[in-house]
């Protein structure tokens, strides 16, 4: 099944990838290993999943101010998700992408979704992002 979703491209991009999604917010500090891309928060449903090179959707970031630094470091070594989807605007993830652009000219696309659209996504979906904020979702199920 193919669906089109209109989101807000906070940091626009154009790419395609496989989705990993959770309803649980995530702190990248203490929750994401920038050297490997593994989600390491042992209390999080995605604990143990590797998000490097995937499209990662979390509703928002939780906890520490250091989430931005961890994501920036992951992007520097090539272990960040290839794009990030959130429910609403998350300053922490957007900032990491802005700084990755400033320092390395490698921003990470960040898209803010409406809550009802967010709920329609499932892990494993194939997602294509467009610079105008639209997403083409091909669901596996």
């Amino acid at each position, binding site marked *: 099944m193919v669906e089109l979703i209109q989101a807000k491209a906070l940091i626009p991009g154009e790419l395609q990838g496989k989705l990993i999604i959770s309803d649980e917010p995530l702190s990248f500090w203490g*929750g994401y290993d920038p050297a490997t891309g593994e989600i390491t928060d042992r*209390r999080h449903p995605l604990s143990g999943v590797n998000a490097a090179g995937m499209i990662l959707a979390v509703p928002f970031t939780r906890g520490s101010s250091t989430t931005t630094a961890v994501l*920036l470091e992951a992007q520097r070594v090539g272990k960040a998700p290839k794009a990030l989807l959130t429910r609403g605007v998350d*300053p922490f993830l957007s900032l990491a992408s*802005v*700084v990755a652009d400033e320092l390395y000219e490698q921003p990470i696309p960040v898209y803010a979704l409406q809550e009802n659209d967010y709920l329609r996504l499932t892990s494993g979906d194939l997602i294509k992002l467009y610079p105008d904020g639209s997403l083409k979702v091909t669901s596996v199920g």
Partner: protein
Amino acid sequence: MDQAKLDGAYGAGVEMAMRIIVRMARILDAEKLIDIEGAHIDSSLYMGDATLEFAERLVELGAKVSVPSTLNVSGVDEHGWQSWPVDPLWAEKARRQMVAYERMGCNPIWTCAPYQSEFKPVFGQQIAWGESNAIVYANSVIGARTERYPDLLDICAAITGRVPAFGLHLTENRIGQLHLRLKDVPVELQAEDSFYPVLGHHIGKIAGESLPVIDGLKHVPKEDQLKALGAAMASSGTVGMFHLVGITPEATTLAHALGGGDAPTTIDITREDLTLAWKELSTADGEDLDMVVLGSPHFSIAEFKQLVPLLMGKKCHPDVRFLITSSRAMRALAEGSGALDVIDEFGGTITVDTCILTTPMLPPEIKVLMTNSAKYAYYAPGMLNTQVVFGSLEDCVASAVEGRVGRDVSLWSN
């Protein structure tokens, strides 16, 4: 003047910082930029080469802070890391990052409890603070106004003196959105230090993105209890501010905290909820113990004074390490009060500038930690790959003496 900063009239460092501020203002849909009067910089934390490159780039471009700015914890205890198995290469890079922020003109207080320093902000002041626990404290307990600043944005705010007008900077966003009512929680429990981190842990989990209003507290909490409450909420949740009815300055009454309106949602917090939250803060269930660690947020002089009588005449078990993380300023006060001699005599040690979560300093044989901090308890299992036991300060000391975990569970059982 904003445009001039953006055009490079104030130098390339200001230009880069301003470009980041303006890009973020657009992403956040902020209508305008506003002035700030101070900043607390969490970006000083070394998280790998990216954070060091960012800091050194700003220094190289001549950036200096334009408002009084303090530094959060760093990646290493600058003068004491050698007593722990810290990789010298890490220590060197973390130290370089410390120097970079000092060169930009920040005050090197190196603490995650800046609200217990002489640089504490005042009610109503617009500030840009990083460090989740400090943000909650500044907003909630002091009534200063800061959004939850991510690392790297705090320093851009400090350099430019400008921030997007968004989030908790704005009066309308400081109104309580979730009414939390303590129900049948015994007053004796409310007076216990460990009640606050447990309550905070629970609230962080249920508050989501809402601003919680806590109602029904019968005990007037001490400063360090409020500190523990906020730190716990900001670990398990996204909370950047809370109201405590009758205690915090923007919550003189429930109606005041709710901005005169009704709470969209009311949730009761029962003793059972808190018992569950208390259980959840521990991941180990045996008696094995390798280390007791206190001081997240950094231990205050009042906490040192509370600890001293518990340690007097006792000795830490030889198989257990006993560590307190604090700031240089608090360590100096503790030294003056004689507390350091008592800690030394007991067999404990102190680390300053940093903590066990921000410096990879623990030897690999440390498998089980015990702490009275919900923040340490929350993060240690994922970040340090250790198991953790949450207990009161008294439990922590008694367990360190016995060499095995022992807790007084009577408060938490029904």
